[in-house]
């Protein structure tokens, strides 16, 4: 197998979108995915429509792209495959893939890296007791359970206190995590509305530093405030087990507006975890000769998509945290930059 097309690494929403954008311009693509299927992390994002009304979360954007990619016979999709070497040669790249059937060699004129991100492990924020108490779950767990079991998974008629704690494992310079994950305010507020709308006896409190409501999709946030979802400025300082069987948790926090120390007894606590660089990002960067930024995401030029190595481009969350829609847009720009450089290259 040799190809003079583009090698796209990572079959998440960013890789799939980049591959599609290149195919639209008649460039042959080899798409390499480590897993047995395409889709990446976006496939566990649930639909957050409240009573049939779309909340514009972007969760359903990935299905269309994935279908289009599967229908596109011109994309050479290599599943359960990784790249073992990739070196510049003769104005392009020579690479080796490790597949289930052994290794494959090929050449490509350019490479788009779309290796994505890891979920923040909620355990990194030890004080919040994730993994110790059943009432505490992480945002990615809630997303996954709602998308696998359907929106009814957390329904109840009983009175219930639900607390969302934002910025878990993000915006925390002391822990070396001084970035905002961009997606967790958006999914957090939408999930808060969803849980409240499905179970009217649920009371929801969102603990946050600042809600990221910029851009035009702030409607969910405006509606949440009208629907009696309480926003508390500041994160709980302490979480303790409570209830006869530790089925509840007691959140203690400083209410800066009331000017006093207060507590809340919650039945379900959602830790809004965000996006962090993949554990193997250093190895991937080395393989392609790329630099990483201060936080471990792949370093890009000022345009967000080109890198220090000519011919290698970045797409999606491997470069910075972003939503599904933003990942698609970013991947399209990466593909466009790649095409533009290829056209300018003397043949």
């Amino acid at each position, binding site marked *: 197998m040799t190809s003079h097309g583009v090698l796209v690494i990572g079959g998440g929403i960013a890789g799939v979108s980049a591959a599609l*954008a290149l195919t*639209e*311009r008649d460039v042959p693509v080899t798409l390499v995915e480590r897993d047995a299927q395409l889709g990446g992390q976006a496939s566990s994002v649930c639909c957050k429509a409240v009573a049939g009304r779309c909340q*514009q*979360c*972007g969760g359903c*954007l990935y299905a269309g792209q994935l279908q289009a990619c599967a229908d596109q016979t011109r994309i050479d999709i290599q599943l359960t495959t990784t790249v073992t070497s990739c070196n510049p040669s003769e104005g392009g790249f020579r690479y080796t893939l490790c597949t289930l059937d052994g290794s494959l060699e090929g050449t490509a004129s350019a490479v788009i890296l779309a290796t994505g991100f890891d979920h923040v492990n909620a355990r990194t924020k030890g004080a919040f007791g994730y993994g110790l108490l059943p009432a505490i779950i992480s945002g990615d767990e809630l997303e996954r359970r709602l998308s696998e079991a359907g929106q009814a998974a957390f329904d109840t008629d009983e009175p219930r206190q639900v607390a969302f704690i934002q910025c878990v494992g993000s*915006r925390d*310079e002391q822990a070396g995590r*001084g*970035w*905002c994950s*961009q997606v967790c*305010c958006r999914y957090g507020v939408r999930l808060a509305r969803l849980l409240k709308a499905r179970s009217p006896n649920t009371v929801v409190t969102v603990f946050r*530093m*600042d*809600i*990221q*409501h*910029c*851009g*035009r*999709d*702030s*409607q969910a946030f405006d509606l949440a405030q009208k629907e009696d979802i309480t926003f508390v*400025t500041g994160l709980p300082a302490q979480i303790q087990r409570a209830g006869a069987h530790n089925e509840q948790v007691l959140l203690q926090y400083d209410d*800066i507006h009331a000017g006093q120390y207060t507590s809340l007894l919650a039945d379900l606590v959602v830790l809004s975890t965000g996006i962090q660089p993949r554990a193997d990002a250093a190895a991937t960067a080395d393989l392609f000769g790329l630099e990483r*930024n*201060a*936080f471990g995401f792949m370093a890009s030029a*000022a*345009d*967000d998509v080109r890198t220090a190595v000519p011919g290698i481009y970045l797409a999606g969350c491997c470069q*910075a945290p972003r939503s599904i*829609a*933003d990942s*698609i*847009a970013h991947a*399209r*720009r990466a*593909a*466009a*930059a790649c*095409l*533009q450089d290829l056209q300018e290259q003397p043949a």
Partner: protein
Amino acid sequence: MNELVAVIGTGYDADCAAQALRSHGFRVERIVQGPSAPFQLSTLEGYVGSFALRGFCDGSLTALSVGAVVVATGNERVPLTALKKLPQHARIVSTKQLASQLTKPASITERASRQRQHIALTIDLMTPASREATREVIDLAGQLRDKCKCEVSVLYRELQVDTDWLEKRVRDLRAAGVAFHRLQAAMPEPDAEGITIRHADGQLRADLLGVAQPVRPRRDHPALAEALGIRVGEDGYLQPFNVHLYHFGGTARKGVYLVGRCHLDTDDSGVRQDAELVASQLAVLLTVNGTQPEAVLAWVDRAKCIRCLTCIRTCPHSAVELADAEGVTAAHVLEAACFGCGMCIANCPVQAISMRGQAVPAWLQEAAP
């Protein structure tokens, strides 16, 4: 295929759009908006690939054939004098004004620098924060600190730090001695010696207050949208928010695209990226398929329609509206916007909608050379 693209707008956003389009091989026709503009836009007819942009030039009706239309009219910044509750005082200026004085001799910033004054900057004093204002204030705080060696405080209600590693820039500024405080409801109180501002951690005294001007949508958007057959969101920006279109500069009308601050909350670098994205999409849309009207379109049997509005709500492309004709009000499919997806047909409770083959409409035959 028509490789001429009309770019509507005059400012930075339109310049970026035109430049990105040219770099993708398009020819560009710049169209200025406003009462004194030479070309007064009245309607846009046709489909992507062969639009006719009609308007008045020197009082006579003319038409311009273009392949696509890119709107890049930008937004507006509210002048401080229009903020009713804000005290009008010589010590309160806009951050734009401060930024423009940075390099000038004998300016207020130069004096502030000489006297080591304390300058306070607010991001979202009266209206919700925007990314544009946030970045403006953060950039300015850094410059006042580094170049003018002023004491700088930044005041905010919500810090919007989700993009461009702004969280890190805020931390770095804090480490460099810039104070950040959360605002309280109270307005700043200027007096002869300085300004007092209350915040969550107490209060501060500053010599000068820089207020970021709030952003707002342009007020001529509704008229422009009407002429182009697109829609304005409830918030006044172009195209009601739709996650399937927003991030790609799309509108419900195929071939009409939006670039920059007429639909996004972003800064200059975001505008450049948006322009690049739209130009690359147009390169596909205008060269590969996409330039033909859809072969089949939805069609409403006006006699059957019970005006339940289901199709208007469910159409993902805002292609259905209520229309009066022959004394009947009924749903009506806008040919230019319909993608033929069939959503409306599936949802109509009285089976009033069906697919119809599409004949070449009269105006298109007319537009052909």
